[in-house]
Structures are given as structure tokens and as C-alpha cells.
């Protein structure tokens, strides 16, 4: 009973599915199972995040989304919370009374900012491009097949952007021609706009919509790390003036742990902030920099067509530019009249049959 879908004509002259209730419609193989409330699925209408074809995890009814592997993200959280917790508990009382109470205050503000930016970078949609609907995919296939007589047909398109030739590649998973600067993340199985990199520390891809949060996170985290490092050292020095060095270490053993964590973090995080500052000022993504897409080594006339030419404009555009909305509408309800995207993984035979049918129908409509 569950698999048969009756079709009935609705007012729009299109077939409306009387799809069976929630849990019996086959969900895609990976990743879209909710972490909480499994029992609700069969009773309430399904939301789009529940049938999302990528390998993401969704929490809080689709409000929060992350990558599949989140272990390293929890490590990041633990490291930050532990170090800051130890700092505020063991070092701040001494510093506040001996130096100034502004130290814990500034530390507190920095800590809240870091956590805010981390959550924003981790939990938001990085700019995922939804997969093509079966009609679109069929139309593109038709265009590709009719374009070239040679086998295999070309799966790239060349575009001239501000005078620079850029190749657009066809994504076999999402069945679209990727816009410039977009890339397919193999870990999350999604095409992401302005793809920078997949960050395991943040537990998400870094793309157009969350790059500024990622950048502000690493920038504020470097400031926080330097801040904590400096003031813990100050604390130990001030204490050793009173009780000697070993005595100071015995009085506040947590300081040793903090110094070690901060010392190793500073090298990596400050370095990363510096690298991303360079990327922002030249309007490049990590992906482009690693591949050397715009380097002059590729050709004398090779230049970055997206750069505004001036460092300040590039920085402002990356950090203060308009924030586009999410394209995947995770919390929307699935309407029975809307076309579902082509799913690649377990490939319900319906969708491939659909493409063929529409394909043949469209060929029939054009004699």
C-alpha cells in the first residue's frame, strides 16, 4: 500500500500525488535522518530537511545543520570551554584583584564573541545549491547531447567573466553546471557556492554564507588565545614574585595546562587568520589558492576576475556584503505538487523513469 502513489488531476492541470503518510515514503540512503524525535515523522507532514539528499545532519527540526562527522567539532568546543573555564576560574580572581577587573570583562566579551561566531559558522547553511529537479536535469541532458556529435559529449561550458575565461563543470551528482567558484564537497555530498574548504574543526563546509563567520571566529579566537596566553604568563610571573616560581605553579596548576594549549594553538590559529586575511584581501577562496587558479604561473594573462582591484573593497565585500538567504528551505513543508530533486544514491527507479518519460515527451513535443 505504501509504495503505490495514486495520481489525481488537481486544479492546476498537473497531477497531484496522494502520497502515503510520512515514514513509508522511502527516504534517501544517508544522512537525512533526524537525530531527535523519530516518532513524530509518521504523524506530522514531512519537512524538506527530512528528505534532503546530501550527507548533512539536521537538529532542532531543521534549524541547525552540520556535516556528518562532528567529532572534531566537539573537540574544538571542549578545548575552548576548558581553557576559558580554567582561565576564568583560576587566573581571573588574582588578576582582577591585583591588576584590574577589566581583564575578565574583556576576556568575557571575547569568549562570547568567539562562541557566537563558532555556532554561527557551524550551524548555518554554507550556501548549498539544491540539486536539479528532474525536468531541469532532462533539459540539460538534452542540451548537452544535442551540442556535441562526438562521444563523450562535453561536460564543461566556457564563460567569459570580466575578460577572463572560466570553465564551468557539470556536476554528475547534482545534475547542474556548477556556477563559478562553486565546488562539490565530497564529505557532505553537496555543491556549495563560493566553496572555500570543508572545516572539520567547525564541523561544516565554509562557503559563501558562512565565510565571514568563520573568518571572524578564527580572528577572535586568535585574539582570545593571545589574550589568555599573555595574562596567564603575567599571573604566574606576579605570583612568583610573591611565592617563588615553583610555589606559583603549585598554587595554580591550571595555568600550566592553559599555557600549553594556548602555545600550540597560537601557531596554528594565528597562522590561519593571517592566511585567510590574505585570501580575503585578494578575493580568493582556499580552493582557488591551492589549485593556483589565478596565479601568473599558469599564464601571463591569468588574473582573478572576481577581485575588485583594491584591498579595502575586497575586505568590505567579503565581510560586510549582503548575506544571501539559504536556497534549500530546510523547514518548508513538502508540498505534494512540487517536483522532488533527483536523488543519486539509492536512486529510486521513479526518478530515472521520470527523466526518461519527460525526455521522450519533450522530444515528442518538438517534431
Amino acid at each position, binding site marked *: 500500500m505504501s509504495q503505490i*502513489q495514486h*495520481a489525481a*488531476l488537481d486544479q492546476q*492541470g*498537473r*497531477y497531484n*500525488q496522494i*502520497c502515503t503518510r510520512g515514514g513509508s515514503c522511502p527516504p534517501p540512503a544517508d544522512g537525512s535522518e533526524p537525530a531527535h524525535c523519530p516518532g513524530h515523522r509518521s504523524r506530522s507532514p514531512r519537512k524538506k530537511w527530512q528528505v534532503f539528499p546530501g550527507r548533512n545532519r539536521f537538529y532542532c527540526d531543521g534549524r541547525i545543520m552540520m556535516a556528518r562527522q562532528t567529532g572534531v567539532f566537539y573537540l574544538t568546543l571542549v578545548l575552548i570551554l576548558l581553557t576559558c573555564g580554567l582561565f576564568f576560574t583560576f587566573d581571573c580572581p588574582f588578576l582582577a584583584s591585583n591588576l584590574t577587573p577589566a581583564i575578565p570583562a574583556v576576556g568575557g566579551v571575547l569568549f*562570547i*564573541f568567539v562562541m*557566537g561566531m563558532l555556532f*554561527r559558522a557551524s550551524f548555518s547553511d554554507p550556501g548549498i*545549491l*539544491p540539486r*536539479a529537479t*528532474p*525536468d*531541469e536535469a532532462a*533539459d*540539460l541532458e538534452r542540451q548537452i547531447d544535442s551540442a556535441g556529435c562526438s562521444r563523450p559529449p562535453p561536460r564543461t561550458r566556457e*564563460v*567569459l*567573466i*570580466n575578460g577572463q575565461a*572560466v570553465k*564551468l563543470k557539470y556536476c554528475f551528482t547534482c545534475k*547542474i*553546471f556548477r*556556477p*563559478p*567558484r562553486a565546488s562539490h564537497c565530497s564529505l557532505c555530498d553537496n555543491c556549495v*557556492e*563560493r566553496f572555500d574548504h570543508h572545516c572539520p574543526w567547525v564541523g561544516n563546509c565554509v562557503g559563501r554564507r558562512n565565510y565571514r563567520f568563520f573568518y*571572524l571566529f578564527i580572528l577572535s579566537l586568535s585574539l582570545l588565545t593571545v589574550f589568555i596566553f599573555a595574562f596567564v604568563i603575567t599571573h604566574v610571573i606576579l605570583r612568583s614574585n610573591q611565592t617563588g616560581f615553583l610555589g606559583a605553579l603549585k598554587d595554580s596548576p591550571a595555568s600550566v595546562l592553559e599555557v600549553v594549549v594556548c602555545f600550540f594553538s597560537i601557531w596554528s590559529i594565528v597562522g590561519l587568520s593571517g592566511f585567510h586575511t590574505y585570501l580575503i584581501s585578494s578575493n580568493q577562496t582556499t580552493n582557488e589558492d591551492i589549485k593556483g587558479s589565478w596565479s601568473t604561473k599558469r599564464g601571463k594573462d591569468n588574473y582573478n*576576475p*572576481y577581485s575588485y582591484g583594491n584591498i579595502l573593497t575586497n575586505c*568590505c*565585500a567579503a*565581510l*560586510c*556584503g*549582503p*548575506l*544571501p*538567504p539559504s*536556497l534549500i528551505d530546510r523547514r518548508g513543508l513538502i508540498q*505534494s505538487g*512540487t*517536483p*522532488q530533486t533527483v536523488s543519486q544514491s539509492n536512486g529510486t527507479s*521513479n526518478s530515472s523513469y*521520470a527523466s526518461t*518519460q*519527460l525526455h*521522450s*515527451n*519533450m522530444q*515528442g*513535443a*518538438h517534431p
Partner: protein
Amino acid sequence: MATEFHNLQELRHSASLANKVFIQRDYSEGTTCKFQTKFPSELESRIERTLFEDTVKTLNNYYAEAEKIGGQSYLEGCLACATAYLIFLCMETRYEKVLKKIAKYIQEQNEKIYAPRGLLITDPIERGMRVIEISIYEDRGSSGSSSGSSSVSGSTAR
């Protein structure tokens, strides 16, 4: 207005989906949202070229306005950063405001211009801003076999 709406209802009652045309993105100016204004051959018999081009150009202008980088967007960005982005709990971003304007414009164009000609524009935001999807409807009475096959494709396209 009542006549146009009546046409839209009639369209839906008496017509069946025959074909879909996809207007692709124009990337010649970078990654900003812009659609090609090339007139597709499938629409030649259905709508005047100028009307179609006007619609696409207006949409392109709206998107350019949404993505414009200037004084107002900087102000919004800095204010948002200063309030740790909590301000967006009470306020809409400029992009969202423009998207609402676009939705209204598309609905208006559908009612006044496209539906009377048996066409329907789908808002690009529903297709991930990749394409402008224009559905072409045909009278059910005029083409028996094509409506039969298009209805099959309609159901399996879910």
C-alpha cells in the same frame, strides 16, 4: 484584474503542462545573480520578445539591487556584526526584502501577461536561483495525445 485572474483559473482548469523552458544564468559579470535575456525558440509563438525581455531585465535589476555592495549594505553588515547578528531576529535582511518584492512582481506578471498566453513563470528562488522556469501549457482539447503523455510525465516527475 478579475478578468486576468479568471484567465489564470481557466488556464489551470482546462490546460495541461506541455513543456518547460529553462532560462539559465548569465555569468559574464561574475557570480552576481543575472539571467540570460536570450529569447528561447519555444516561446516564439507564445509571447512577444519585448515583453519577455522586459520581464527578465526587471528581474535582473531586482537581483542587482539585492546584491549591491554600497553604503547601505556596509551599514547593515557592521550593525549586524556589532550586535552579534542577533539583530536579524527582529529585522529582515535587505536581500530578503528584495526577494519579497520579486515574488510579488512575478505573481503580477503571471496574472497580467503570462497566464493569458498559457505560460507560467516559477520564481527562481524555488529552483535554487539556477534557472527561471517557464511552464508552457496547452489546451487539453486541442492536443489529445500530447496531453496524455505530458500527464504521465507530470506524475512521474515527482
